[in-house]
């Protein structure tokens, strides 16, 4: 498998990144080289191998449903780019 300009364009759109023509060219080259390098994993026989998502065995972590101290609405919104009526404000989506 090799990665084409079309693939990079598609992946950039999925990742919400807008690439200039120059960037598209450059990233296609470097990503093709990296993808080619990781192709070596295709050589291994992995039919009976279980995937590892966490090195240390993990289970669900639950806590009792109690209200604990947390940031106030005002503290949380203190970092907002734009806030209105106690909410984060974003550009208009629906007319």
């Amino acid at each position, binding site marked *: *498998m090799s*990665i084409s300009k079309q*693939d*990079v364009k*598609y*992946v*950039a759109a*999925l*990742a*919400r*990144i*807008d*690439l200039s023509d120059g*960037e598209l060219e*450059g*990233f296609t080259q*470097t*990503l093709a*080289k*990296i*993808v080619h*390098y*990781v192709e*070596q*994993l*295709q050589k*291994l026989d*992995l039919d009976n*191998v*279980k*995937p*590892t*998502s*966490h*090195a*240390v065995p*993990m289970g669900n*972590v639950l*806590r009792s449903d109690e209200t604990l101290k947390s*940031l106030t609405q005002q*503290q*949380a919104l*203190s*970092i*907002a*780019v*734009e806030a209105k009526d106690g909410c*984060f404000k*974003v*550009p*208009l*989506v629906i007319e």
Partner: protein
Amino acid sequence: MNLPQLTAHDLLDVFKSGKASPKEAYEDVLRRIKAVDPKVKAYVRPAKNQPDFKGGFQIPIALKDNLCTKQEEITCASRILKGFISPYDAGVVEKVKKSGGAVLGFANQDEFAFGSSCETSCYGPTFNPWDLQCVPGGSSGGSAAAVAADEAVWALGSDTGGSIRQPASFCGIVGLKPTYGRVSRYGLIAFASSLDQIGPLTKDVRDCALLLNIIAGYDERDSTCVNEPVPDYTKALVNDVRGLKIGVPKEAFAEGLDAQVRVSLEAAIDLLKKLGAVVTQVHLPHTPYAVATYYIVATAEASSNLARFDGVRYGLRVQPARARKNALVDMYEETRSKGFGAEAKRRIMLGTYALSSGYYDAYYLRGQKVRTLIKNDLDEAFKVCDVVLTPTSPTVAFKVGEKMSDPLSMYLSDIYTIPANLAGIPAISVPCGFSKGGLPIGMQLMGKAFDEEMLLRVSYTYEQNTEWHTRKPNL
């Protein structure tokens, strides 16, 4: 008395004797920063808030720019987070402050910890105190350079594929990546959540044990933090390796290893033998696949973690001059395109590719399976040895700019450090020599999960019988 030069444990003795106060030490280190940081550029920002000088460990400390600290700007060295003032303290920052830690400032790093040289930072590179033409390593390069240049007594960094150990090696100091789950990741800006771990960068092994004592332990705000008792790590500082088994993988000494690094490592192995350790060969047949595995698993997790930086809530928001799709999507794309640097874009796209429909089985799932094989190799090795010894990095620090045009060659500099992250085990880098050009060389020791004590014991013994850690760069 030159307070900034001292280790934390020596400084604590000075405080106890009354010869100097913690405030004097803090101010002396600030003066040292003023004097040498224009050359080293270890810091991206001084702390705005003064320490309160209370507690048993009032040590001047540098924090990596990805550790959330209350009422301080934290940016992960990325334009996309410029202006973000953290409303809370990370778990480790809380612990450091509670112990008395005096935060000096925030240390440079690769953007979002994506890099091995500190060059992808939006603030520009940090320079290696031993040779200002060279990189300090990365991604915790600012933390390592600050400690090596006596611009901090000790520092915290984070390690996803070697980001504490490789810069520690390049800067001639001690760096430890604890077992996954040993230290809370709450408030660490995430890169790859199944690999990230916070750890100490210090001037010697005793300081490493002391700082680990401060930061280790359970935190219910990080669901991957493990609720295991925390020993007093200073009790592991025993100058004795007699009878301990040290595994040396032959794969680690294959081609690609710099000749001077090899010579230093062989000398270190000989010394450990003389001190009574038993050296055995171990076999890690899948480690040659570690870099490929890592750059699938880590970038996949990164692409999903970095989805949150979209201009909606905090950090940067950029609206494009001309409408393209709709106002919200345009804002997402413009913000991310302007906010992320080239390496961040590359890794987000690589991870998105590995997770995308049609490629998931071929890349991500395969990567997770090879991760199992690498972990199994290490499990097998630890059946016959107490620690596994390798170089920390295949080379000494390289020149600024040398690897920036070839990301793959940069990725390969993490070949020895990545397996410990994939397997979740602890690993330490300690100074073990210098190149002819005067650049530090590091030795890595990996241990069993939650056996940081064994790593500290072996590295302490090695350190007590060598003097590499006492050398200082000329600045």
